[in-house]
């Protein structure tokens, strides 16, 4: 059984896993190089557009200097070889636009904010949305749950940007309860004490609320629909006729069966966390990977793009592999074959 599992189930998935990572990272290397944005020219254009007077007579020399400095000499193939050598050591080189800051340092600064906000909100919205959605699907005639459903119907189609902006205006301008911007108060130094933790939570509250409400509404509605379908299944009808307690039917029979696609969805959502939450970061001026990646793209900062997306590709494919391996444990109908 163990050998069969390794040979017929684990190894093919592992090969697939490495292949996806290889192809994904290769694509990430080449795609920005096909884009019309050249990092050297972009840097010069930025300096010029920001009012720096670059003597036109010496611009070509500056281009040559920067190409040398950024390590953009040699053919793409040579750069590709160097790139893989660096990937294995976790070194994505320096950021061109934020020269000479190493890419890994920029990611290290942004990552904790993204991870803490998005892991928490993804899990919270998933748990809240699925539990309430499951109950709402089963007790479809309950007045309160129907009201919740109506609210979710209104919230879900809202563009996130508008929803987040509305929360921002409500809580920071109308009610004036929460700060407008940032991950901490301006001038607050990092310290592991209650004041600092409360400050961080206070600043994270609105971004988190926006993500939990909108994310929760989506999980709520999908779960409710899945449960409503399962309700019509024979085994649920038999359980009801057999006098099994309703709580047991809801949680053991219905919700458990409805969870499988939701678990896959959760795994993918967690994997995508490393791409950041661009709009959340922009609306709430919150630190994170989303804006870092966005600016890397518009400035043609190849190394930074590759650093963030390589980590993201690794995270998503790993989560898919883990789910693939765990699925037979969650659903006995799926076998290790």
């Amino acid at each position, binding site marked *: 059984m163990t050998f069969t599992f390794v040979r017929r189930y684990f190894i093919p998935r592992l090969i697939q896993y490495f292949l996806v990572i290889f192809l994904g990272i290769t694509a990430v290397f080449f795609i920005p190089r096909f884009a019309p*944005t050249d990092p050297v020219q972009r840097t010069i254009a930025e300096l010029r557009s920001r*009012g720096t*007077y670059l003597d036109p*007579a010496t611009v*070509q020399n*500056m281009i040559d200097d920067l190409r040398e400095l950024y390590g953009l000499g040699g053919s793409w193939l040579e750069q590709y070889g160097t790139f893989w050598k660096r990937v294995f050591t976790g070194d994505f080189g320096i950021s061109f636009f934020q020269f000479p800051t190493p890419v890994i340092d920029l990611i290290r600064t942004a990552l904790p904010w993204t991870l803490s906000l998005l892991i928490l909100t993804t899990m919270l919205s998933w748990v809240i949305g699925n539990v309430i959605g499951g109950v709402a699907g089963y007790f479809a005639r309950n007045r309160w749950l129907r009201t919740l459903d109506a609210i979710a119907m209104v919230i879900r189609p809202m563009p996130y940007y508008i929803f987040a902006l509305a929360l921002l205006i409500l809580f920071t301008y109308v009610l004036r309860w929460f700060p*407008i911007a940032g991950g901490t108060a*301006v001038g607050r130094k990092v310290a592991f004490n209650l004041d600092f933790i409360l400050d961080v939570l206070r600043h994270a509250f609105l971004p988190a609320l926006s993500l939990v409400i909108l994310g929760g509404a989506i999980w709520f509605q999908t779960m409710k629909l899945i449960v409503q379908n399962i309700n019509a299944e024979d085994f649920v009808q038999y359980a009801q006729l057999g006098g099994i307690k309703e709580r047991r039917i809801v949680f053991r029979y219905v919700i458990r069966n409805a969870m499988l696609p939701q678990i896959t969805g959760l795994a993918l959502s967690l994997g995508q966390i490393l791409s950041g939450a661009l709009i959340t970061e922009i*609306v709430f001026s919150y630190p994170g990977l989303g804006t870092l990646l966005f600016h890397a793209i518009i400035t043609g900062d190849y190394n930074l793009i590759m650093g963030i997306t390589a980590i993201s590709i690794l995270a998503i494919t790993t989560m898919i592999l883990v789910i693939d391996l765990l699925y037979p444990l969650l659903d006995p109908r799926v076998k290790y074959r």
Partner: protein
Amino acid sequence: MKRMWKVLTVVWIGVALLALPGLAQLAPELPRSETLIVGILTGRVGSASNFNEWVGWKWRDRGMQNLANEPLWSIDFATGEIINGLAAGDAIYSKDFRHVTIPLREGVTWTDGVPFTADDVVYTVKTIMATPGFNAHSALSNDVGAVYKDGDYKVMFDLKQANSRFHTHFLDRWGCIWIMPKHIFETVTDPLTFEFDPFVGCGPYKLHSYDPSGYWTIWEKRADWDKSPTGILYGEPKPKYIIFQTFGTEGAKIVAQLTHQLDAVDLSAEGLMAALAQGKTIRAYQPEFPWVVNNDPCITGLLFNTAVAPFDNVDVRWALLLAIDIVEHLGQAVDGMGTLSPVHIPSLGSYPEDFIKPMEPWLEAFTLDLGNGETFHPYDPDAPQRIVKYAKGRGYVVSDDPAVQDQAFGLGWYKYAPEAAAKLLEKNGFSKNSDGQWLLPDGTVWKIEVIETTDTSTHGFKNGNAAVQQWKQFGIDAEYVASDAQATLQGNGKFQVSGSWPAQEPWGAGVDLYRTLNYYNSAYMKPLGELNQGNNSRWSSPEMDAVIKGLRETDPADTAATVALGIEGLKLAVAAMPGIPTYGYCGFLTWDEYYWTNWPGSENPYTQPYAHWGPFKYMMPFLEPTGNK
């Protein structure tokens, strides 16, 4: 149900506890009444811990150029002055412009207490020249033969070739070559990768702290502020702390200002109107319409790629200009708030008196050949009056004082003349099809792509979209293409028309237009596909080369000769029209007067008004606290 209420109560108490400090955005040690908070124009700082502004782009408007640094000289476009910072006076040139002497200010110290001397200047120049990768490496290497000091407060340069504008490398006009503190840089192994944290400058403020994520930087007034040029020239700066902060959206900026958490910020036209309408303590640069900062030394407009057909034809470029109704264009772009300029410099400061007014007879006589023996005079001195009429029609209160109107709306522009435009095109083989669309001489439909930024708040976006509307009305299939790669595309000549500045910005003070005209030098024009070194229109001419050469050989202190050459260059640019100048840059700046007053508004322009320009530091001694806590 009881359990649910218990859970909800706990959640509510949690939220209430978190919300207790309310809106307080500042750490407790920063008293709001002693703190000035301003926006960062260029947004979130990408490399927050790196203050080495001599390499690459370092978000220098986070307080480095505008507060903590002092250049040798600064441009103040509002007063038209060139302010001596670290320099004690003007640069002194030899007759052949091959030797320059710069006198330095005595009594200045760096923020760490070390005296500033000629050694710092000599070290800066030598280090930059010795290290490829510094932004100014090529420029200084190209110019400087030798640099040495004569005592502690005089620096001498021997130049490789005559250059009457060498000193402008150190003249801060939103950036220049700043002086390095020798005692710090000489201790590091690699000055290129050195982060220079904490920052040390000669300005009146020192670095207090910064957000590693780049959203804010805090500066604190030096105890020895009187050892900075700002303190020596203007006295003690008033705010104890100055925070440069960025916000993700304009909505957040407006909310921050309405709740008194942001004292000065640049907004969009719409944002300015919203802030003024809702904030009782918020004011703009001008107390009445058109509110905006209209003396910023940049001219906005449209730029043609004259290296591609049909924009290589001057008649086509002029036809496209005459197809623009400037009233509609300005209305769409900035609701009539811009100051028109018919030439390739803005109508601000001394420029109208020195250049535009003396050019008026020539502009009025300027004639276009429409073909078939027909001619046309395009200049329209009444164009600003048409803008006044538009503004009054919109319900804005506009002064009837002609001097105020000239200052607000300019001295003239060009006629809206679609018939003349059509004749110019027909003269060159263009025609119209039965749908009223313009066809190229080869009979295909004429499509124009105006490529420019995705950022809707920029004047590039506004001018580009307004022109597209005008040209569509004229019958051309025009389209605005928004691209984040526009800077690279334009540099490489992969565009037809853009909404970029139609000419390089002038200094904003003095009469020297070398900075603007030199960009048309034929030596800087590269073939399509290569990054252009001069103006992206790629237009040049032997006549303009001669003007540039003339300016190089003229002492910029010789006002009469410099103005005459400047006018000659502007005439050539108007005749060739490689880019269409529309209006001077409008700054949609707002100030909140809740904590600080005596801002340099149009009624009292004691210095330039922005927080991001270098002379912002010189505003600090003049601001007054209101006493609000």
